[in-house]
């Protein structure tokens, strides 16, 4: 029997507010333990939460960008549980009235568009972080993360492969970044993902028993963890075993998933409306402002890049993964006659340079206009492709304009036949064998002569002009 995989993701995204959701503590990452805390987020007796409007604004933007129907009148609930990472012994979350419902995102699988449903988007506060002593002498809790605003995005069980799950997650990340809702750094925990996965025989409508997979801390590990779990369940089912509903932890070292706890350990969270917080009423003006702050989203941008600039789907996809990269390309493309050339340079040399220097594209020192100028100088033959590589590197190093670099380093391409004739004659003189080959119709032999010309001119000679000049001199 063959099985169909069914996956749904629960994604937590930290909202990029300056301060926490219910107090004024700093949210920046990497501070010493328990340095970003106050009586409110520490759950001291007698303190009360007050909603940070910025968290609501970002949450609303996210819900709108995910095509959700948003609630303009919702509420916060308490999710009660005892654990040292939760100073109040409850988490302020949203239970039955999330800010967003019935949304979707589109992913592209093998060139086909697929719509993935979003069940709900809700606001909540993050919990603290437990650090267990490696010496087994205790556990330590860091409350810096307590109260950092989160949205939880729950997908419909619409994903069918681990690859789709990764594509969906990348799409969520791109949308959040485009909307400036979150930086979505998985390595810092500002994007976290749990997955529900089950298998069912093809054609069967009812879902199989699911496992929840936790601790997949990178895009690649989400795919790996789900691939492992898919195979594990498939093997078990093929052997006639029964899948137990449980929570499993992804182990990065072995690439496998390990059982954490069964269904019987499930909590009763005793949700009820938080009496310390009034209902969340969103005015029309607030909602309109959120709506207006949502930029052109990655899917629409990709479409436009293909239409307006004639880019292949692959290029459009790569260039729109980051809003900055997309906008950089967009600005460049409007100033050049060959946007595909700009795309090649950007995806090739520029991204390779940024990768090698360990910087993100946002750190680029070149402006789109400078970059467009470089493309123009290649097109009009002022510099060769080879020289352009050198110029681009200098641009990326220094932020200088390409014309200035060319001038300073004397890199202008020599296309002047008169200037090249003397050198060409000398090269012909020194290489009678190659000349003979050319005369005998061995076209390739011209290559070595061109190479010598380039060497003589330190690469500045225009290869096309040189090629023609040599042919003219030898064959005439």
């Amino acid at each position, binding site marked *: 029997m063959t099985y169909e995989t069914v996956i749904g993701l629960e994604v937590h995204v930290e909202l990029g507010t300056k301060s926490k959701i219910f107090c004024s503590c700093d949210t920046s990452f990497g501070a010493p333990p328990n340095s970003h805390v106050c*009586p409110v987020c*520490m*759950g*001291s*007796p*007698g*303190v*009360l*939460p*007050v*909603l940070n409007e910025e968290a609501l604004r970002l949450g609303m933007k996210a819900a709108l960008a995910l095509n959700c129907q948003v609630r303009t009148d919702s509420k916060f609930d*308490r999710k*009660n549980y*005892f654990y*040292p990472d939760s*100073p*109040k*012994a*409850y988490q302020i979350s949203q239970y039955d009235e999330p800010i967003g419902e019935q949304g979707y995102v589109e992913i592209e699988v093998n060139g086909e568009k697929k719509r993935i449903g979003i069940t709900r988007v809700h606001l909540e506060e993050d919990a603290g972080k437990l650090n267990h002593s490696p010496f087994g002498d205790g556990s330590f*809790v860091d409350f810096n993360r307590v109260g950092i605003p989160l949205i939880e995005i729950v997908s419909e069980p619409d994903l069918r492969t681990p690859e789709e799950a990764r594509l969906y997650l990348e799409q969520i990340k791109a949308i959040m970044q485009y909307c400036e809702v979150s930086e979505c750094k998985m390595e810092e925990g500002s994007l976290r993902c749990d997955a529900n996965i089950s298998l069912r025989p093809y054609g069967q409508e009812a879902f199989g028993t699911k496992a929840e997979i936790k601790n997949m801390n990178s895009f690649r590990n989400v795919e790996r963890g789900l691939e492992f779990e898919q195979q594990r369940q498939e093997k078990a089912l093929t052997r006639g075993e029964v899948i137990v509903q449980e929570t499993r932890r992804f182990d990065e070292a072995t690439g496998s998933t390990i059982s954490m706890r069964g269904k019987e350990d499930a909590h*009763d969270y*005793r*949700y*009820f409306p938080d*009496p*310390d*917080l*009034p209902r969340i009423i969103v005015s029309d003006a607030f909602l309109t402002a959120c709506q207006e702050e949502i930029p052109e989203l990655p899917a629409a941008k990709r479409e436009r890049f293909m239409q307006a600039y004639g880019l292949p789907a692959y290029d459009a996809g790569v260039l729109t993964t980051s809003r900055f990269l997309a906008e950089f390309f967009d600005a460049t493309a409007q100033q050049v006659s060959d946007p595909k050339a700009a795309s090649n340079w950007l995806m090739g040399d520029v991204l390779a340079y940024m990768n090698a220097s360990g910087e993100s594209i946002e750190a680029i020192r070149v402006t789109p206009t400078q970059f467009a100028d470089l493309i123009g100088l290649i097109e009009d033959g002022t510099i060769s492709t080879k020289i352009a590589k050198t110029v681009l590197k200098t641009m990326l190093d220094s932020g200088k304009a390409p014309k200035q670099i060319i001038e300073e380093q004397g890199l202008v391409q020599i296309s002047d036949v008169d200037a090249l004739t003397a050198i060409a004659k000398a090269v012909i003189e020194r290489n009678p064998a190659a000349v003979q080959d050319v005369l005998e119709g061995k076209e390739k032999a011209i290559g070595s002569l061109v190479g010598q010309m380039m060497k003589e001119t330190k690469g500045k000679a225009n290869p096309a002009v040189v090629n023609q000049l040599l042919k003219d001199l030898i064959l005439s």
Partner: protein
Amino acid sequence: MIDFRKGLRALQKALQQGEVTPQDLVLHSLTTIEEQDSVIQAFLRTESHVAKQRAQVVTSTVTTREDNVLAGIPYALKDNMCYEGVETTCASKILAGYIPPHTATAAHRLDHAGGILIGKVNLDEFAMGSTTENSAYFSTHNPWHPDYVPGGSSGGSAAAVAAGMVPYALGSDTGGSIRQPASFCGVVGLKPTYGRVSRFGLVSYASSLDQIGPITNSVEDAAIVLSAIAGFDERDATCANVPVDDYVGALTGDVKGLRIGVAAELMGEGIDERVRNAVQKAIDLLQSLGATVVPIHLPHLSYAIATYYLIAPAEASSNLARFDGVRYGYRAPQADNLLSMYSKTRSAGFGDEVKRRILLGTYALSSGYYDAYYKRAQQMRTLIAQDFQQAYEHVDVIVAPTSPVLPFRLGEASDDPVTNYLIDICTIPVNLAGLPAISVPCDVVEGLPVGLQIIGNMFDEATILRVADTYEKHSPFAALREAKWGGAAQ
């Protein structure tokens, strides 16, 4: 000669005329506590050092701030309100030794007005109870008769004021905890509208019902203290941004034309006849002063106790979950693991009544029971609030007894918690509806005070203060009180 019972205006005048200094008032307070508190046991702790220092600091504000009645005058705080650097226990073992890093907004505003904190007073543990016998430390006694309870849960606040140890105190009221002890101790207690006074710094019992208010010697004093503590606070999202009326200016001494509602449901069965008679006399007096008495109905009132004992414990079960021994307060020794640390800490740290309400609330919120209990209680709460709103279409205030019974002896309360819960029948509906209400003494029966409750419409503290003040000026209680304390205050 200092007598705190003569009221805040008299103290302000004495201070301004240089007859006394803030230091004198602090010393008088500390001396009275020393003399009387071995019997009354209102104070969990005094902060004599801090108070003496504060007295020096605020001396200058006494003369320069004419309009500020509270400058240089001591007060006491119920020990469920935080004050920076001062131990706050909620009369529970679980918070023993806890020193908060923050001050409750209400206390902060009193300090801003020049007030001087003398100390923290006793309560039923986490404000759960009506006798102050549920304190983990000791029971407080009624100054009118030390064999009797002072009421609760703000029993320490009411007893301290009644005994003349402080001119006023703050209490908190979730189901009657300001009004009932005020009634039992023969003083004035005001529970403001929910949201009128910030709850920031008040250790939550039931967040949707809790409200801080003053316990004072007179209605005018209640108006003065309320003026100082009322108003919007950005640190409490449930604190209303509604303008604060001129409460002192509202005391016109006149009730002519006011419509006074009397609900059969609050004057009938279950009300001690002696209490009913005293309240009826008060109603007659108000009528003779020009008010109109209008019979009203509050049809859902019989559900109030059940409603309250689902909502309040549900909220409490969640609010008190943070006392887990991890970050502050008591932690049980010799726990083997996390779960045993939690259960040992909470088993030893909480008293029986607190545990009972946590269990009750946990049950009411549990999966499968939520709809039947908590949700239905919320629906009933809405109906009760609507009953009052409909009544206020015809009346300006509603009067009722504060407590259906006279003060009783310590240890006399029933072993059956449900019977005890019933004695809050007159006060609980007011919290459920979020309304303001004041208890003003109206009689003394068999040597024990009786309180008249005046319940107002939302944010209409001004009218209940006006009615209470007018009543107080004509009430026979002043003479009865004089007879009781006549020579007591030195």
